[in-house]
């Protein structure tokens, strides 16, 4: 694969906190223009990986290139070309939606003459035009998430990093976020890397997924391939259970499948 077609190229990326190895020699290539899902149970190393790729944490060893630049050698170049939406809601509730975007536009040095038009376009794109001048603390969780996506796309990043973008959202808000992510990916060709432990989300959005388990890459491929690997009428949940350490033996795998069936029956 030619380097210009790879948005994220990770080689032997490792992060240690003292004696704990949070991320253990990960290798991955994310082609440009796709939505890539990084899956894993809590504590598998998803957020640590994102923090290294967004230059917020320095890797202990290994390297990665994001949007063509090395995260260790040229962190400023990387930052200019990426957008990042952290897991915790991060928009400022005491400001209006418009003001939040104005702050981002200034920090990302969007030219003064273009600011207004770009902010309005981003608000429109995320369906927030009517709420632009309301304080963000009056927004619903889903609206705040969409505002953060608007903030992250304002400087037209090549790669967008999203850490559990739909956690804590109701189903309607979740589907709205999915739709906007798909639109963003298709309309602007933005490469998106998102972490999730929601298999429905991964199946719905991601062209490629990787499952992390205890800091190591357990498996990597297209959702359909992974399901085929398990065999039978497998869902991505089964793949996840198999490779994320959630099922240490077949019995427990069956248990989770049963539990899910019951949950589905109960609605």
């Amino acid at each position: 694969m030619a380097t210009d077609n790879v948005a994220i190229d990770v080689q032997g990326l490792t992060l240690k906190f003292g004696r704990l190895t949070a991320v253990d020699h990960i290798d991955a290539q994310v082609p440009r223009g796709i939505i890539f899902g990084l899956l894993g149970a809590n504590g598998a190393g998803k957020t640590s990986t994102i923090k290294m790729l967004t230059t917020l944490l320095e890797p202990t060893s290994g390297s990665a290139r994001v949007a063509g630049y090395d995260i260790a050698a040229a962190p400023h170049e990387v930052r200019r070309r990426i957008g990042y939406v952290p897991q915790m809601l991060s928009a400022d509730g005491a400001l209006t939606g418009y003001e939040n975007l104005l702050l981002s536009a200034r920090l990302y040095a969007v030219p003064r003459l273009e600011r207004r038009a770009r902010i309005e376009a981003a608000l429109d794109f995320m369906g927030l035009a009517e709420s632009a001048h309301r304080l963000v603390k009056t927004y619903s969780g889903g609206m705040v998430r969409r505002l953060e996506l608007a903030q992250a796309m304002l400087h037209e990043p090549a790669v967008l990093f999203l850490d559990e973008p739909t956690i804590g959202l109701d189903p309607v808000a979740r589907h709205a976020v999915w739709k906007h992510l798909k639109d963003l990916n298709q309309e602007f060709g933005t490469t998106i890397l998102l972490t999730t432990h929601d298999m429905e989300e991964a199946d719905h959005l991601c062209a490629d997924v990787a499952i992390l388990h205890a800091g190591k890459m357990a498996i990597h491929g297209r959702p359909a391939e992974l399901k085929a690997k398990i065999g039978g009428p497998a869902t991505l949940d089964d793949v996840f259970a198999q490779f994320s350490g959630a099922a240490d033996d077949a019995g427990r795998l069956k248990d989770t499948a049963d539990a899910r069936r019951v949950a589905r029956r109960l609605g």
Partner: protein
Amino acid sequence: MKRAVRYLSECFAIADVELRKLIRDPTELFSRAIQPVLWLAVFGQVLSHVRGIDTGKAGYLAFMTPGILA
């Protein structure tokens, strides 16, 4: 030079945001001031008497004041 201009404009953007918040809700000015005063006047006094933390030659108040004002 370019970097300095950028730095200043970033500082200005943050200052502008904070000013907007204070103008919108002036009581913030008061509530934001309370915490450091509380730390210095109440916790600072108590903890400096207890001598729970070894701060070397400097007293505990001298040790904590710069951090609280920052």
